[in-house]
């Protein structure tokens, strides 16, 4: 599979949208070169604001623009944006119901060499719990572009989680993201793997390899983590009898928890979680870290076998 950059998708789509919508303004905490918000900065310097290394102030300022009818996109690294500005996001975006779009890059272990201080593995959990907030984790470049376009018209705060590393392209160029809808990528009958982000491509690889062992897996890209596609989860639980979740995130509070919440309320079946097991990461290469921290294709395959045995 070819690889393409999700943050490039974000930056490119932002420029396209900026041309047709004068209400879009973009904020950065001095990381626009890395997040690719600088594409917008170059195209529309009057509507771009580098707020300095001050995430709380950045989010508050964006809230002021939202109060004046603008559509603010706020971008930074996931770890800084969601942690440093959490109180402001909760209070000014969510409690005040302002439709600020938070686009965080550099989430997860695939940040790589900078190590644990920059590797956000908690952001899905802490953003998901906020009332009003929607959480989206795109799987590739094309999905990212569709997500960025769709969230402009969503009248609530939205958190979009992107990565530093290039991810394999799994969707078609005209991919049409729909909030609240999962995307069935492969059908199967023995187990369902529900994945987000880079783990979608790994889930596809695992499913293809398991075919050779006569295990048939359904693979779902659940990029809309909140609101989540309850019907698709329940339907898959009924039809395949067990679930595996896969995410580049801590095991607590993320996609696995969100899927479990649906299953335990509506149709409990055995579930296994492929996620980082309550530890911090470290320096290393992106792919190497995924493999070393329990997110390998091999581990997905083992989890599939384990959960099938529990049926």
């Amino acid at each position, binding site marked *: 599979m070819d690889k393409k950059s999700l943050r490039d998708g974000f930056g490119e789509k932002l420029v396209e949208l900026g041309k047709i919508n004068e209400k879009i*303004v973009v904020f950065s905490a001095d990381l626009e070169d890395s997040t690719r918000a600088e594409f917008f900065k170059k195209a529309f310097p009057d509507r771009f604001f580098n707020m300095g290394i001050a995430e709380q*102030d950045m*989010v*508050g*300022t964006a809230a*002021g*623009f939202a109060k*004046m009818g603008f559509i603010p996109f706020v971008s930074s690294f996931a770890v800084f944006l969601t942690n440093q500005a959490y109180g402001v996001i909760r209070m000014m975006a969510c409690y*005040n119901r302002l439709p600020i779009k938070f686009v965080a890059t550099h989430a997860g272990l695939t940040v790589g060499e900078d190590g644990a201080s920059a590797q956000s593995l908690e952001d899905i959990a802490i953003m998901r719990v906020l009332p009003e907030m929607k959480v989206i984790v795109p799987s590739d470049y094309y999905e990212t572009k569709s997500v960025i376009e769709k969230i402009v018209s969503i009248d609530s705060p939205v958190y979009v989680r992107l990565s530093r590393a290039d991810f394999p392209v799994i969707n078609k160029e005209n991919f049409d993201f729909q909030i609240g809808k999962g995307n069935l990528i492969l059908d199967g009958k023995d187990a369902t793997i529900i994945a987000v982000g880079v783990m979608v491509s790994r889930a596809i690889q695992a499913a293809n390899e398991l075919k050779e062992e006569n295990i048939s897996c359904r693979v779902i890209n659940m990029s809309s983590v909140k609101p989540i596609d309850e019907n698709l989860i329940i339907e898959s639980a009924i039809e395949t009898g067990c679930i595996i979740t896969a995410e580049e995130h801590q095991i607590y509070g993320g996609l696995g928890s969100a899927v479990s919440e649906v299953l335990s309320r509506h149709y409990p079946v055995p579930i296994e979680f492929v996620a980082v097991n309550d530890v911090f990461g470290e320096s290393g290469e992106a792919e190497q870290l995924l493999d070393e921290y329990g997110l390998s294709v091999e581990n997905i395959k083992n989890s599939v076998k384990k959960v099938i045995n529990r049926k």
Partner: protein
Amino acid sequence: MKEDLIKKFKEMAKSFRKEILEMIANAKSGHPGGSLSLVEILISLYFYKLKHKPDDPFWDERDRVILSKGHASPVMYVTLANAGYFDKKELFNFRKYKALLQGHIHYSVPGIELATGYLGQGLSVANGIAMASKLLKKDTKVYCIIGDGELQEGNIWEALMTSAHRKLNNLCIILDANGVQENGFVKDIKNEEPLKEKMLAFGFEVFEINGHSFEEIIDVLDRFGANEKPFFIIARTVKGKGVSFMENNHNWHGKAPKKEELEKALLEIGG
């Protein structure tokens, strides 16, 4: 003319103070100290300076007021009710379940722009409104009221840098420098002085006034508009102003007066 206005304002201040204490006593909780310190400032803003229409709270051309110290809701609610934004009888449902008037100010109340109550956040939003107004080429004025206890929050200093760096001359920051926070005096807990020198160094046009003198408040507000730098008013005030046993007493930061205390306070305020 101005003398008549000030005479009228002084009478209003007395009745505002009474209404503030009555609504807090009725709610059995709330923040009297930092409400009483802001009475003269809010009267001067809402009944003298602001461009606003109480019967049209979302009028596009209105000036914006962000009360960052959102726990001073009683003085804000009393001011808005007296200005005609909503029925004064709502004051007696303050802090009650399903009531319009939440404990900390909320945007569902006509006249409130922004829900606050989580200290340190309001100035960044005020900056954003000021920046957006400039981008839209509007002459909206933005007033942001912050507290001196609140000034210990880091977010505010990030925002102060932004106000100055972005040359937001359509922004007027009013610091309610009452010198007292929940557990004591600001100077003992985390000293912030010299405030005037700090704000000058940041790049503000700074004025230091007696925040209970209508003459001084009106005079300084009259100067706002012709400034090139963002405007910073250090309003020296007294926490709990007007009630002897509440003045400069941190115990009255967030406590409701009991029946006898209320009666004593109302008698002292007089008028």
